[in-house]
């Protein structure tokens, strides 16, 4: 390619990609779908070219779709450029035979690691060449691949809600009564406990060992036995129910594998049964600190599918709510980070004090403190009253800036905090992009990639704000960038509050059942944790055919092994806090 990668527009990329690989790249011609279909045999070659020649250095999402009727499985990849611009979609189709095999892209983008494992776990797509293809959300030994269309849950009633058994003729039944075990159980035929041998966790420990040998941590290896420590799933500093198996040499981490799924609530599968609007409250419970940001991404995805505009006032309300959410998220992050470093409670109490004020606003507009369920397709559900707007103004203009200053004054120069954080490497730019890390961690590594600027959605292009970037990539920068982001959010809020117009809050009529034409959409927003995206496939029915969440916490965890190798176990807790994960989003 002669032109520098960043100046190529998407159309140009499309043209030159097809020109470059005429034999095995074709445009996806299904109505409502976009992107390319790549031949399975040449996937790695095309992906490498996309990364090296076309500049798509960040693999956003990998997911699978089971097209049962057409008897094929599709793997969908979304690649982005950290320099900005729209993303590129490419797909691979494989025959739906057992096992479905697709080459792994882990050598091209390491960020594919966990997402491919998830696709293996939930859809049974085998990624050949993946070095550690274990189940990730369910346990080893679980029967079946739940997101396949022919998998029926134990409480399965019908394909689409609302279920006839519950609505509206009064013949109410419980799901339990339909299951032979009277419980949420799906045992295979002829199952007998007597001759059942539960699977052990050998695979996990083998993969630990393998990985510690692969990345030889110097001479230290010869100095004695290694010890495996399991942290979690019940551990005060893993931010929920994350389990981490750590291999230690003395105090130094030689290898580390996160084990998740302890909060896997079957978001995707439940989403496929629900109607479009019914999914909205479920998105609240993904990243339960930021229900507003979660709503935003899903609303954008479905609006893209429906091709409807958003009411002007609603756009501003959305931005205001999301930015408030970002502020409280970062405040909690700081409080919890310092909690993890051993300063129990006091700093987090400061953070929670401010958070409560923001939650008051959420409660006033939506009726709930945390699970707001506030966005609708085309707008928001309720208007923001004048007195609430005034409250927000007070917060934004007086209280929050002063309190942020106060926290910074107390904390930033604190000797212990500086000693714990400064100079401890988290991620550099290459590592971060290679592992698909997004959000503050990527920006603290010196990559100014913020979706609000890189691919502006909603009305973010109307505001004057800076993308917070820091360049050292150490823990101290990762900590400071949260304060920077709070300040930028306050800047956005000030402008949004000034510019907010009157008018309707929804471009559509209020409706329970929306009509969504067939097609696919990828709605992404910059959530406080990183790039939050929803991949929705519709076939024109009342419920989505496929609903997938690209959760920033989950993908960011891919980098945790790289981050932690060679550091002391005491720093691991803080490094994990830096990623700012929320288990509801990691496990979904």
């Amino acid at each position: 390619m002669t032109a520098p990668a960043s100046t190529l527009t998407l159309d140009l990329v499309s043209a030159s990609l097809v020109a470059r690989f005429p034999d095995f790249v074709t445009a996806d011609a299904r109505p409502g779908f976009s992107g390319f279909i790549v031949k399975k045999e040449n996937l790695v070659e095309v992906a490498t070219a996309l990364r090296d020649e076309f500049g798509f250095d960040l693999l956003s999402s990998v997911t699978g779709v089971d097209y049962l009727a057409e008897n094929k499985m599709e793997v969908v990849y979304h690649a982005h450029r950290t320099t900005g611009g729209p993303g590129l979609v490419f797909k691979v189709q494989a025959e739906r035979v057992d096992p479905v095999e697709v080459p792994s892209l882990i050598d091209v983008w390491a960020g594919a690691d966990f997402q491919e494992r998830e696709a293996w776990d939930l859809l049974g797509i085998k990624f050949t060449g993946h070095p550690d293809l274990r189940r990730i959300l369910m346990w080893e030994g679980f029967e079946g691949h739940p997101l396949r269309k022919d998998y029926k849950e134990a409480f399965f009633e019908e394909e689409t809600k609302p279920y006839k058994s519950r609505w509206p003729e009064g013949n109410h039944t419980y799901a339990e009564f339909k299951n032979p075990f009277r419980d949420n159980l799906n045992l295979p035929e002829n199952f007998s406990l007597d001759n059942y041998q539960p699977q052990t966790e050998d695979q996990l420990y083998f993969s630990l060992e393998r990985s510690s040998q692969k990345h030889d941590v110097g001479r230290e290896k010869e100095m004695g036995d290694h010890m495996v420590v399991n942290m979690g799933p019940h551990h005060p500093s893993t931010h929920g129910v994350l389990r981490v198996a750590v291999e230690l040499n003395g105090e130094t981490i030689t290898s580390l594998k996160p084990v998740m799924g302890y909060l896997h609530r079957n978001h995707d599968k439940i989403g496929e049964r629900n109607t479009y609007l019914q999914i909205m409250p479920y998105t609240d419970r993904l990243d339960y600190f930021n229900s507003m940001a979660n709503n935003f991404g899903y609303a954008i995805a479905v609006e893209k599918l429906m091709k409807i505009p958003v009411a002007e006032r609603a756009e501003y309300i959305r931005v205001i709510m999301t930015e408030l959410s970002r502020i409280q998220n970062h405040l909690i992050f700081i409080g919890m980070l310092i909690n993890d470093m051993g300063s129990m409670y006091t700093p987090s109490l400061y953070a929670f004090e401010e958070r409560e004020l923001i939650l008051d606003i959420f409660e006033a507009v939506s009726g709930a403190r945390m699970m707001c369920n506030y966005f609708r397709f085309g707008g928001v559900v309720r208007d923001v009253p004048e007195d609430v707007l005034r409250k927000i103004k007070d917060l934004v203009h007086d209280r929050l800036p002063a309190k942020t200053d106060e926290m910074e004054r107390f904390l930033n120069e604190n000797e212990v905090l500086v000693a714990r954080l400064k100079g401890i490497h988290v991620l550099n730019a290459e590592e971060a992009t290679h592992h698909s890390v997004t959000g503050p961690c990527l920006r603290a590594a010196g990559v100014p990639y913020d979706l609000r600027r890189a691919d502006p959605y909603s009305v973010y292009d109307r505001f004057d704000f800076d993308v917070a970037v820091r360049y050292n990539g150490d823990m101290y920068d990762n900590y400071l960038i949260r304060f920077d982001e709070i300040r930028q959010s306050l800047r956005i809020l000030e402008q949004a509050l000034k510019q907010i117009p009157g008018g309707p809050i929804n471009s559509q009529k209020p409706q329970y059942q929306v009509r969504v034409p067939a097609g696919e959409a990828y709605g992404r927003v910059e959530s406080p944790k990183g790039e939050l995206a929803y991949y929705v496939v519709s076939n024109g029915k009342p419920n989505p055919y496929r609903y997938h969440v690209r959760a920033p916490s989950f993908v960011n965890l891919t980098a945790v092994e790289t981050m932690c190798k060679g550091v002391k176990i005491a720093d691991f807790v803080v490094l994990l806090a830096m990623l700012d994960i929320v288990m509801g989003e990691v496990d979904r």
Partner: protein
Amino acid sequence: MEENKYEGLNLPNYNIPEDIQNVVSVTTIDRLYNWGRRWSVWPLMFGLACCAIEMIAAQASRYDMARFGMEVMRPTPRQADMMLVSGTVTKKMLPSIIRLYNQMPEPKYVVAMGACASSGGPFKEGYNVVAGIDKFLPVDVYIPGCPPTPQALIAGMIKLQEKIDKQSIKKVRWYEKGKVDSNYVPMPILGPDLIDVRRSAEFEAAAVKKEGVA
């Protein structure tokens, strides 16, 4: 505040002279035990999902659960009295929860916080979700809500205190004679699906029946 506490301790209808009211107390063993327990319920520092955040909020500055003698969150089950099941119980997590429960010393209480812990809540249909922790553990108080507000949580805790007030040493299950293991819940097995070993015979019968139908 101080006086109120002693009120709970004293038996009614005994007139203690005013000048020794803070020194002498006429009470029963049950009352003494219950009085001590209700003001020092130490919760297990244990969060599962969204509800855990409201639990933290209830501990934090505005709601301050410390007012009710419940601020001492213990990360180890060995020192905890109460397990606040705050969130969705998944099949994968359940063995860990049971293990924690078994490690807690008596007296121990279980509070199911929120819709998920009570019944599976919005996620009940999920293939990885246990429809309520009460399928495995004896629950003392259920708190509705998704998530319950901190006020609701505190109300639930007060309900638990009221329940503790009513217990009698003779009758509580952990002091009953010959029922040493009554608080031990056998560990479920993560097989092809979650298997409650207490129900294994039933499962086998059902599996055979299913086969017969097919």
